[in-house]
């Protein structure tokens, strides 16, 4: 009898476990993004230890900036031997939340204006340090082996695509912009039944690269680092709200000087060149 009792409770617990898991899953995925992109704070190779005090600049940056920022780190640190950059990559929304909760960060490089605005309203950033340093564009992609051939978003024929991968419009910024584009082109309702909604832009890339989705919409900076995709068209900027990347110094920083140095570097010729190389556009 006791055995049966214990047993049925064990079964009940077992059933409740996936409930916990399913909600935790989401959190895990999000929090996993942050440490994943965080590079070790190794010093540039061969650099002798500096006698002067070394500033460790913690930069919370949008995940889409990962590759560009890692390249910038190398040249910036060799030019500024007293500063070490430490990145914390993640979705802009999560990073803003962390900063609000008092996470140590000196700089915030956001992929969305909205998140930066919210921090500014709460005086969490130094307002006069805020700059827009890059722009991104939406591109229509297909796998390199796909026969699909269109030269504009407007030419997409819903009858010729079976699965169309985009970011989920309610939660993924790229998806929100994509929705604006297709609504502008009066294609949203026609394509609706074809959409496979992804939890982030990188997943759209995976679906398209593997040929499982016939086409997809990602940022141009994502398409440029992808291997097996072909860019068919770029969305006209007037079809969606501008995709700007604002940067600002976090109000609680102890390294304001170093942070300003980095912002200056980001907007210098060298910074622009690297950003351009990784598919970002200049802010006019």
């Amino acid at each position, binding site marked *: 009898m006791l055995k049966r009792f214990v047993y*049925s409770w064990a079964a009940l617990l077992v*059933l409740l476990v996936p*409930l916990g898991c399913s909600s935790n*899953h989401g959190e895990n995925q999000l929090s996993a993004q942050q440490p994943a992109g965080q590079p070790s704070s190794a010093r540039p190779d061969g650099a002798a230890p500096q006698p002067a005090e070394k500033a460790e600049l913690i930069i919370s940056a949008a995940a889409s900036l990962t590759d560009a920022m890692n390249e910038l780190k190398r040249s910036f640190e060799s030019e500024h031997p007293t500063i070490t950059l430490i990145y914390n990559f993640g979705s802009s929304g999560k990073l803003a939340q962390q900063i609000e909760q008092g996470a140590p960060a000196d700089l915030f490089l956001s992929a969305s204006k909205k998140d930066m605005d919210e921090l500014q309203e709460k005086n969490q950033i130094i307002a006069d340090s805020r700059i827009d340093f890059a722009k991104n564009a939406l591109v229509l992609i297909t796998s390199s082996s796909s026969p699909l051939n269109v030269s504009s978003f407007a030419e997409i024929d819903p009858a010729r695509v079976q699965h169309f991968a985009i970011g*989920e419009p*309610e*939660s993924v910024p790229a998806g929100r912009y994509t929705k604006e584009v297709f609504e502008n082109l009066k294609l949203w309702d026609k394509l609706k039944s074809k959409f*496979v909604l992804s939890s982030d832009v990188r997943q759209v890339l995976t679906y398209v690269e*593997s040929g499982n989705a016939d086409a997809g919409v990602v940022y141009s900076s994502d398409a440029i680092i992808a291997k097996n995709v072909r860019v068919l068209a770029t969305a006209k900027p007037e079809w969606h709200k501008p995709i700007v990347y604002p940067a600002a110094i976090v109000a609680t920083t102890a390294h304001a000087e170093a942070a300003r140095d980095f912002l200056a570097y980001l907007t210098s010729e060298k910074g622009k060149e690297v950003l351009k190389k990784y598919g970002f556009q200049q802010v006019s």
Partner: protein
Amino acid sequence: MSDSTSLTPLFLSLQVAGISTFVVFITGLLAARILSRNTFFGKSFVESVLLLPLVLPPTVVGFGLLILLGKNGWIGKWLLEWFDIQIVFSLTGAVIASIVVSFPLMYQSAMAAFASIDRKLENAARTMGASGWRVFWTISFPLAWSGLLAGLVLSFARALGEFGATLMLAGYIPGKTDTLPVAIYFAVEAGQTEKASFWVIIIIALGLSITIWLQWWSRRNLNRYKSEK
């Protein structure tokens, strides 16, 4: 919560978990029976492979399945060419993801259940002339039943909660592949707390009613075995 809360995710989840558990129960049982009664070269390797999905993160399993079953994958290509079946972005994809992820739980439980049986009883039946099949159904299966039931419940629960591999393989197509965990994830991400809570309540109610039913059912079965004795 009016228009967007059709009950589709609930029905999809029940369908996926139901089919997956059915498949997993039979295959897990067979695999455990065969592997527990036979030794052969490379057996421990086969066992490790069968248990692998338990230790891998579901997204890794999902990615692996996507590579294997995708349009350009080894198996996916073949299925598409010969049977015109596309697994990715379909409910079948969700079922397969659930099967792969919950199989080790059923297998492991069945393995333990069979191992706990007193082999003398089986041998006694055999010496009395019972066929292997009859020994299995009248001795092994009833004796292992409580362990098998645990495996069944575990697999169903795992399939019901499966998220990572499902999202990878079946994608999120509202009304077509949005099982409960996927619907909850996107509702939370989009800040639709009301919708998310609605689904959470549904999944809890579902879990509770299954346990209650299982309790009732296993008690009834146990009583029947007792009275047959």
